[in-house]
């Protein structure tokens, strides 16, 4: 059977674009979560939308499960092939159109690397604001499939806010052209939005029309040191009310030390601090800087911060950002169990307090790395695997605490996955954030689009 499938696929895309070696199936079978053992049937790399349609039609007819695969930087196991699925990689679908300067849009195929989209916008005097540490590898298709967020959400929103049109291939091989780049289109259900955040379970995203915007002026970065977790919220409140922020990030001293031990970066200041916030704003005029300084004076006088620095050049802004952005990669070898959780910004104070209590009580033996896009109410809680513990045992221990964390989030009306998606990691916890009725409707929607359940089966929802 396998040989037959391979031959059929080779007929569609050519022999060079069907990969079956152990290295390839290992590489393409997993994402950045690193919690699952890869087991992929093969990898197929179509070069055109037509080829995607032919592959999907064939898979549907033969009931072959597909895993759509982007940059595989996902953190929830969404792009993992662990059950002998066929990996459909969008790598070769990477054409990017000329920028339409009147509409301020650009058309990207799904496999365009996020950073390439950012650079194209910049080369045309425009800006694509969705940004995070993995944009050098993630693909626009993967960003759409997970509705990626990142470090600029507080000002510019999520990937969803930048998608004006989508082309998708559904399970029977049909190509849908959704919303065609329109700003206004009041013609009923907007299917485009169903695909954003669908994690490959409804169809394959093959192309997107992306909105661009005017670039920000002189982004200036401050890093402030805090001695208590309870200082985060008052600092956030003060700056949020006085400045038009483009980022409000947070990380612990432990997180900073991980970064400093892996990278040759300068420490922001020598005063000891337990936590840090990184604040970014557009420094439009001298008045903006004055406002920022006076906000700083206020939190300093109230004792919420111990020290702080401000970037004096783009190089320094980048160095300060690196302290926050390199955390994930600096801890990845310690196989962190990641919780990507959120509440509304106004609930951040009680959120941090409750999570801290749970963590102290339930994980006394583990090293915990705190960071996150806290201005959006989003916390990344990373529990590091001690070298002496087997992976299974470690994951089991982490999972045993999940209900405590998720119940707290449920009580606060928050989400158990803020931006990393559900995939395999959070699937069984979905009902902490979505009602039973909602999940039922989601399953019915999935069945309408994908009656044979070939699109990333087992991810997001269990049928």
């Amino acid at each position: 059977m396998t040989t037959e499938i391979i031959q059929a696929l080779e007929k569609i895309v050519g022999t060079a674009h069907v990969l079956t070696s152990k290295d390839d199936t290992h590489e393409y079978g997993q994402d950045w979560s690193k919690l699952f053992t890869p087991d992929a049937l093969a990898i197929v790399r179509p070069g055109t939308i037509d080829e995607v349609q032919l592959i999907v039609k064939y898979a549907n007819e033969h009931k072959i499960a597909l895993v759509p695969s982007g940059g595989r930087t996902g953190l929830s196991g969404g792009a993992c092939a662990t059950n002998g699925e066929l990996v459909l990689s969008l790598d070769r679908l990477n054409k990017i159109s000329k920028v339409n300067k009147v509409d301020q849009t650009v058309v990207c195929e799904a496999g365009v690397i996020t950073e390439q989209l950012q650079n194209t916008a910049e080369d045309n005097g425009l800006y694509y604001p969705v940004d995070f540490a993995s944009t050098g590898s993630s693909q626009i298709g993967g960003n759409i499939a997970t509705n990626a967020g990142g470090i600029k959400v507080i000002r510019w929103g999520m990937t969803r806010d930048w998608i004006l049109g989508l082309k998708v291939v559904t399970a029977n091989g049909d190509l849908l052209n959704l919303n065609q780049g329109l700003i206004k289109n009041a013609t009923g259900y907007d299917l485009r939005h169903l695909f954003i955040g669908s994690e490959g379970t409804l169809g394959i995203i093959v192309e997107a029309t992306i909105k661009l915007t005017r670039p920000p002026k002189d982004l200036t970065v401050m890093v402030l040191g805090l001695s208590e977790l309870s200082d985060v919220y008052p600092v956030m409140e003060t700056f949020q009310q006085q400045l038009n922020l483009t980022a409000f990030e947070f990380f612990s001293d432990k997180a900073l030390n991980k970064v400093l031990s892996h990278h040759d970066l300068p420490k922001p200041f020598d005063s000891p601090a337990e936590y840090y916030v990184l604040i970014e704003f557009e420094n439009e005029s001298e008045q903006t800087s004055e406002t920022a300084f006076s906000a700083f004076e206020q939190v300093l006088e109230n004792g919420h911060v111990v020290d702080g620095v401000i970037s004096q050049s783009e190089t320094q802004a980048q160095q300060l950002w690196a302290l926050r952005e390199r955390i994930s990669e600096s801890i990845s070898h310690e196989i962190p169990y990641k919780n990507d959780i959120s509440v509304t910004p106004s609930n951040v104070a009680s959120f941090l307090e409750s999570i801290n209590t749970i963590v102290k009580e339930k994980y006394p033996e583990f090293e915990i790395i705190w960071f996150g896009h806290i201005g959006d109410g989003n916390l990344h809680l990373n529990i590091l695997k001690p070298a002496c513990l087997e992976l299974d045992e470690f994951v089991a221990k982490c999972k045993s605490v999940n209900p405590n964390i998720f119940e707290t989030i449920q009580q606060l009306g928050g989400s158990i996955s803020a931006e990393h998606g559900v995939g395999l990691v959070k699937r069984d916890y979905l009902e902490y954030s979505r009602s039973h009725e909602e999940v039922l409707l989601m399953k019915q929607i999935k069945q309408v689009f994908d009656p044979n359940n070939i699109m990333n089966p087992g991810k997001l929802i269990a049928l």
Partner: protein
Amino acid sequence: MKILVAVKRVIDYNVKVRVKADNTGVETANVKMSMNPFCEIAVEEAVRLKEQGVASEIIVASIGPQQSQETLRTALALGADRAILVKTDEEVQPLAVSKILKELVNKESPDMVILGKQTIDGDNNQTGQMLSALLDWPQGTFASKVVVEDGKVNVTREIDGGLETVALQLPAVVTTDLRLNEPRFASLPNIMKAKKKTLDETTPDELGVDISPRVKTLKVESPPAREAGIKVESVDELVEKLKNEAKVI
């Protein structure tokens, strides 16, 4: 010991510089400006000498438009004690800069002047050397290490193929290279304090320096665009192309 540090406000290192449509210079409207990176290193070195107890006062000076005040404020926040802005909207070439600095030296009598080895806008690498000649002071250029002892300063210089250490009798001129130190960030509490530090203003005229340019710029052009790379199919093809097209082997 008193140190004079010269700093310049330039287009930020990370900005993609664009040539003006009429080829008279580069676009500076709406472009981010910052302290020249080599000047940041000069300020940092002076501050470290003060922290070591070697220097007692740091005076920082900048020649340029009103906005150069911001650059001076940064230097004050980093640890300089007071600042002098020599205000002009004219283009000031290295010779004029060194003449102005010479006048400031005559007024302030520092024991050492620290400058960047060059600014990243003009890339001239002349000011420190010219100043040393005008003052008839010894010079230690491209410094990667500066040690002051017994009325002398030992400057380790980055030269072709290695390092050279020179001992200079003070007063002396030192210009900084990249590896001399890693500048600190400006701390917010220090920025607040820096607002109270003195920033004096003067002009080239008041100092009696004629800054009219000696070099005329005829035309400014972008470098030719780099051609895109190509992919070769095999090692043989690569070797063939290196031999016959690139002619490097």
